[in-house]
């Protein structure tokens, strides 16, 4: 059974029909990158997976549980789904360590000592064990994003969602975050990543999904979707993203 299963998903903001019937699945251990032009609905799709956006129609099933069902224990389901945001969204009033323990102790009801142990292990994983007592404002964007990843990992999620995790970073800081994500992928974490980093998608993804206009236009192994796209919209998008002279086309 697939880890994530999405059936006929529709989402509108007012008259803006952002998702127009999405069907797709993510298998256990799979790394799926979602690419597409801005406004194509890829972030909205990601945010529907843990119901930060509530779809008007369709089903989202995570680990066999239909989280779009009103009777679903949504908070428990969310605790098992890690989410990393474009803007990091670290808690600025808490230390790096407390950012990683606050949900462990309150949601998972772990003992403080156990939560700290888990948090330290995950901060070590993202290469920030020396920043345990720092506050978010004292860190660079790349460090903040890695703390955000450690915070999500500390909940022992079955699935990690990444919403354009490097888009708010200075170019020289992107590499550190991608390195951490690459490592996670190699460790077998199931990941759904909305990204503009084509090189990362090509190298790390098991499957690339191209979205445009609220539908999935094309999906498959990166070598096919990025290397040899079949659909005209995919070709046009990739030409613009990958060709540094695309500005002249406009």
């Amino acid at each position: 059974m697939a880890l994530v299963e999405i059936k006929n998903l529709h989402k509108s903001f007012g008259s803006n029909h952002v998702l127009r019937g999405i069907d797709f699945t993510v298998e256990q251990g799979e790394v799926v990158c979602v690419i597409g032009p801005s406004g194509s609905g890829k972030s909205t799709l990601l945010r529907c997976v843990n119901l930060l956006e509530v779809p008007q129609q369709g089903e989202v099933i995570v680990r066999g549980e239909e989280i779009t069902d009103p009777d679903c224990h949504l908070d428990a389901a969310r605790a098992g789904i890690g989410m990393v945001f474009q803007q990091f969204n670290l808690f600025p009033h808490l230390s790096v360590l407390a950012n990683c323990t606050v949900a462990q102790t309150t949601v998972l009801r772990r003992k403080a000592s156990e939560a700290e142990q888990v948090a330290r292990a995950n901060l070590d994983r993202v290469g920030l064990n020396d920043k345990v007592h720092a506050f978010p404002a004292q860190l660079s964007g790349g460090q903040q994003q890695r703390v955000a990843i450690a915070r999500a990992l500390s909940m022992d999620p079955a699935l990690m969602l990444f919403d354009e995790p490097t888009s708010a970073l200075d170019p020289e800081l992107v590499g550190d975050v991608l390195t951490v994500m690459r490592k996670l992928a190699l460790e077998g974490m199931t990941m759904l990543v909305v990204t503009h980093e084509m090189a990362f998608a090509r190298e790390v993804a098991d499957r690339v999904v191209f979205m445009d206009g609220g539908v999935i236009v094309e999906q498959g192994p990166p070598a096919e979707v990025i290397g040899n796209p079949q659909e005209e919209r995919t070709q046009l998008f990739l030409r613009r993203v990958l060709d540094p002279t695309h500005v002249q086309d406009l």
Partner: protein
Amino acid sequence: MSTQSDTVVRKGLSPRKRAQRSRLIQYAVLVAVALFALFSADWGQIGSVFFKPEFIKSTFQDGVLQALVKTLEYTAGAFVIGLAGGTVLALMRLSSVGPYRWLATAYIEFFRGLPAIVVFIAFSLLPLAFEGMTIPWDPYGVVWLALGIVAAAYMAEVIRAGIQAVPKGQIEAARSLGMPPGLALRKIVLPQAFRIVLPPLTNDLILLVKDSSLVFMIGVAADGYELTGFGRDLANTYSNLTPIVVCGFCYLIITLPLGILVRRLEARAEKSR
């Protein structure tokens, strides 16, 4: 206007000279007023009415410091009630349940629109209107309640603004970690909101210090007098304003440092932005 072309010969003083002369005139007026005040006022009379040394001394002996402590106690209790009530009202205003919003809005508009002294007069008449009714911890209970219910209305608006100033991403991050709404509010939103509203809340505290002077309207016993009641009573006894002046200085001892604190907090908040 100075839009004339360069061929026209400029007349009169240059703008810089004119500004200099204007400043000179302002200083001259100031000196003239000061000299007039110096020679026309009866300084001996003023000194003996406002700053009579023997009355300053007896104001202290009669217990101005106890009155100062009373003012602080009344203010502190009212601040706690205002803070708790204001937080509840702010959350009600942001509730998704309509009636809670309406109730909170009505309360806030009612008590913000009313002069505080009207509320105090109402409280002073309560024991007459409801015979045998007593509010516990006399006189603290009635004072804290009267001051607190007005303060809550003002603080509610400040706290609501603070809660709304917390970025939406913070709630999303908390919820996506599995925190239920109440937990996310307590652990993530409110701590940040209170940090944001610390300067305006301190301003409310200053207003509360001054509003505690309205307590004398309720008619507490002499041993419950705060600064204003104490000063007025003593000034009446002496037929002299010196006790009021001493009490006025006591207020400034509280409010001026708080005012400086507000400016510091604001500067710090500005810097961290």
